[in-house]
C-alpha cells in the first residue's frame, strides 16, 4: 500500500482544511457585502437575521447570494476537474480549459442554445462535447507510448484552437441579437448563471467520491505500472476519472461559460501546502476553487460598475502568469 494512505491525516493538512472552510465562508460573506450598490454591512447582516429594508433584501437574497453560491460551486468544480486531470496525466499543466475540454463543452452547449433547446439539453450537449474533447485529446496524446507533457499540451492547444474556430463559426452564421450575451458567456460570465442547484449537487457528489476514489488515485499518481502491481484496476480507474472530469467540466461550463485557469492554479498551490494526497487535495481544491472564483466574480461585477466584466478575464489575468511560471520551472 501507499504509505501515505495509512497514516492519519497530518495536522498541517487538517489546519489547512479548517482554514479553507473559514475562508470559504468569509469569501461568500464578503461577496454578499460588496456590490455596485453600496449597502452598509449592518444592513446586509440584518437581512440574514430576517430584517432589513426591502431593497437590501432584494439585492442580497435575490441577486448577490444566488450568484455568489453559483460562483463558489463553479469554481470548486473547475478546481476539482483540474486536480483529477493532473493525477490522471501526472502533469501539473493539465486543466480543462488549457486542454480544450471546456471548449468542447462550450460548443456542445452553444449548439443546444442555438437550437433553442431546454436547460437539460444544454447540459447534456455540453457533457457530450466535453467527453468528445477528452477522448480526442487523451486518445491522440497517449497514442502508443506514454504521455509526454509536450505532446499532451500541443494536442490540447490544437484541439482548443479547433473548438475556438467552431465557436467563431457558430457565432458568425448566427443572427446578431444574442451575440453580445454569448460572447460574455464564452469568456466566462456568472451574470447568466441560471441557478446554483446543479453545480452544488455535482460538487457534493464529487467530493463524496473523493474519499473512496482518493486511495486508488494516490496509487495511480505513482505510475500505472506500479498501480497495476499494487492491485489497482488501472484501466477502469482511468476511465472513471475521464468521465468524472468531463462531467464536472460540463456542469461548470453550462453554469458560467468557459472560465479558464481555475483548475490550473488551485490544485498546484494546494499541493505546495498540503502535499499530493488526493483524499485531501480534492476537497481542498473544491473549497479553494470556490473561494477563488467567488472573489474573482466579486471583482468582475464591481471593478468598473455599472459596466460588468466577464469573470474569465479576471481568472485569466491571474492564471496566465502562474501558467508561464510553471512552464518555465518545468524546463529545468
Amino acid at each position: 500500500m501507499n504509505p501515505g494512505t495509512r497514516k492519519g491525516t497530518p495536522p498541517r493538512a487538517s489546519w489547512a482544511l479548517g482554514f479553507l472552510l473559514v475562508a470559504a465562508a468569509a469569501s461568500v460573506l464578503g461577496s454578499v457585502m460588496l456590490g455596485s450598490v453600496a449597502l452598509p454591512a449592518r444592513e446586509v447582516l440584518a437581512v440574514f437575521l430576517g430584517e432589513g429594508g426591502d431593497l437590501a433584501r432584494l439585492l442580497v437574497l435575490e441577486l448577490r447570494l444566488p450568484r455568489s453560491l453559483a460562483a463558489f460551486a463553479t469554481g470548486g468544480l473547475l478546481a476539482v476537474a483540474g486536480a483529477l486531470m493532473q493525477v490522471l496525466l501526472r502533469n501539473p499543466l493539465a486543466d480543462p480549459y488549457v486542454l480544450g475540454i471546456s471548449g468542447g463543452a462550450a460548443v456542445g452547449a452553444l449548439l443546444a442554445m442555438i437550437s433553442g433547446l431546454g436547460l437539460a439539453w444544454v447540459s447534456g450537449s455540453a457533457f457530450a462535447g466535453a467527453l468528445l474533447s477528452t477522448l480526442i485529446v487523451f486518445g491522440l496524446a497517449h497514442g502508443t507510448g506514454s504521455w509526454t507533457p509536450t505532446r499532451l499540451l500541443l494536442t490540447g492547444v490544437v484541439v482548443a484552437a479547433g473548438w475556438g474556430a467552431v465557436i467563431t463559426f457558430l457565432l458568425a452564421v448566427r443572427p446578431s441579437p444574442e451575440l453580445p450575451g454569448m460572447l460574455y458567456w464564452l469568456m466566462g460570465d456568472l451574470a447568466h448563471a441560471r441557478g446554483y442547484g446543479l453545480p452544488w449537487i455535482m460538487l457534493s457528489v464529487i467530493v463524496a467520491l473523493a474519499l473512496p476514489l482518493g486511495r486508488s488515485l494516490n496509487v495511480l499518481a505513482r505510475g500505472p505500472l506500479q498501480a497495476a502491481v499494487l492491485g489497482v484496476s488501472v484501466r477502469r480507474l482511468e476511465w472513471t476519472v475521464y468521465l468524472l472530469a468531463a462531467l464536472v467540466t460540463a456542469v461548470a461550463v453550462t453554469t458560467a461559460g468557459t472560465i479558464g485557469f481555475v483548475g490550473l492554479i488551485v490544485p498546484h498551490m494546494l499541493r505546495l501546502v498540503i502535499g499530493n494526497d488526493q483524499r485531501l487535495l480534492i476537497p481542498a481544491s473544491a473549497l479553494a476553487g470556490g473561494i477563488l472564483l467567488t472573489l474573482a466574480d466579486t471583482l468582475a461585477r464591481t471593478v468598473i460598475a455599472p459596466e460588468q466584466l466577464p469573470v474569465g478575464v479576471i481568472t485569466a489575468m491571474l492564471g496566465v502568469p502562474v501558467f508561464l511560471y510553471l512552464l518555465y520551472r518545468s524546463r529545468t
Partner: protein
Amino acid sequence: MPVPKAGATRHGPSWLAFQAFRRRVRRFSAGLMVAASLPIAAAAQGISVIDDRGRTVQLAEPAQRIVSLAPHLTELLFAVGAGDRIVATVAYADYPEAASSIPRIGTATQLDLERLLAASPDLVIAWSSGSPRAALERLEALGLTVYYSEPGHFEGIAADLQRLGELAGQEERGAVAARDFLDTITELRDRYSTRPEVTVFYQVWDQPLMTVNDQHLIGRAIELCGGRNLFGHLETLVPRPGHETVIAADPEAIVSGGPGEDRPDWLAEWRSWSQLTAVRRDNLFFIPPSLLQRHTPRIAEGTRMLCEVLETARSRRVELPR
C-alpha cells in the same frame, strides 16, 4: 385622409396576419387614435397595453419611475414627453441632450441589475432583441413590470410611441407623436415609392462589410423611397456580403452610415473601383447613422434624406462621358 394604424407585433411572418392582428389590438380612425377596448378584461381603471412580444402589460397608474434599456427607447420616451420620468438608462443614450444626465446602469446588452433594482422603477422598457433575456426574466420574477419593444417597421415605431405614451400617462402626446410620424412616412411613401427604381447598397459597416435585408427597417426605408436593396432578399437581418458581390452587382447608389456622425472614410474607398456606376455618377451618399439606424421618430428625417439622395441619383441618369 390616410388612416394610420398601429399595432402590436414583432417581425410578423405575414403582412395579412399582421393587419388582422393589429386591427384586433388597436384601432385608429381619421387621424385621431382611439384605443379600442381589449377583448380580455383589463384592470378596471388601470392602464393595459400589449407589448411587441404580445404580452399584456398592466399598470395601476401611469408610470412615475421608468428604466429604459436602450438608447432608442430613451429617445421614444422623450418623444412622448416622458423623458423626465426616466430614472436610469444605458450607455450611448445621448439624444435628446437631456438624456445625457440620466444615471447609467450598464450597456444595452450587459446590465447592472443591482443598480437597476436600486432605482426602484415601476416600469422597465426593454429591447426584445437586445436586452439580456435571462436578466429580464429575473426582473419579471421579482415582480417588476417589463414592456418589451421591438419596432421592426414604421408602424411599430408609431405603435410604441402610442403605447409608451399610455403607460406614462401621456396618452395624447403619444398619439400626436405617433400620428405626426406616420403622416411624414405616408407623405414620403406617396411621393417616392412609385419613382423609377434605383438599386441601392446600404453599408452599415466596412470591416467586415455589413448591410441590411428587406426585413430591416432601413431595408423598408429603401423600399419606401423607390429603391431596390441589393441584398434585400437575403435571410439574415444584417448580412455580411463580400466586396466582390457588391462590385459584381454594380449598385446605382451606395448609401452609408458610419461609426460616428461624420462621413466615414470607407465611403471614399469605393472610388478605387472606377467602373462602378455609383462611383462614375458620384452616387456615394452618407446619412448620419443616428437618423437612420435608431428606431425612433428621427428615422422619418433619415428616411427623407434617403429619399432625397435616391432622387439625386435618378437625376444623374444622363450618362456622363467616361
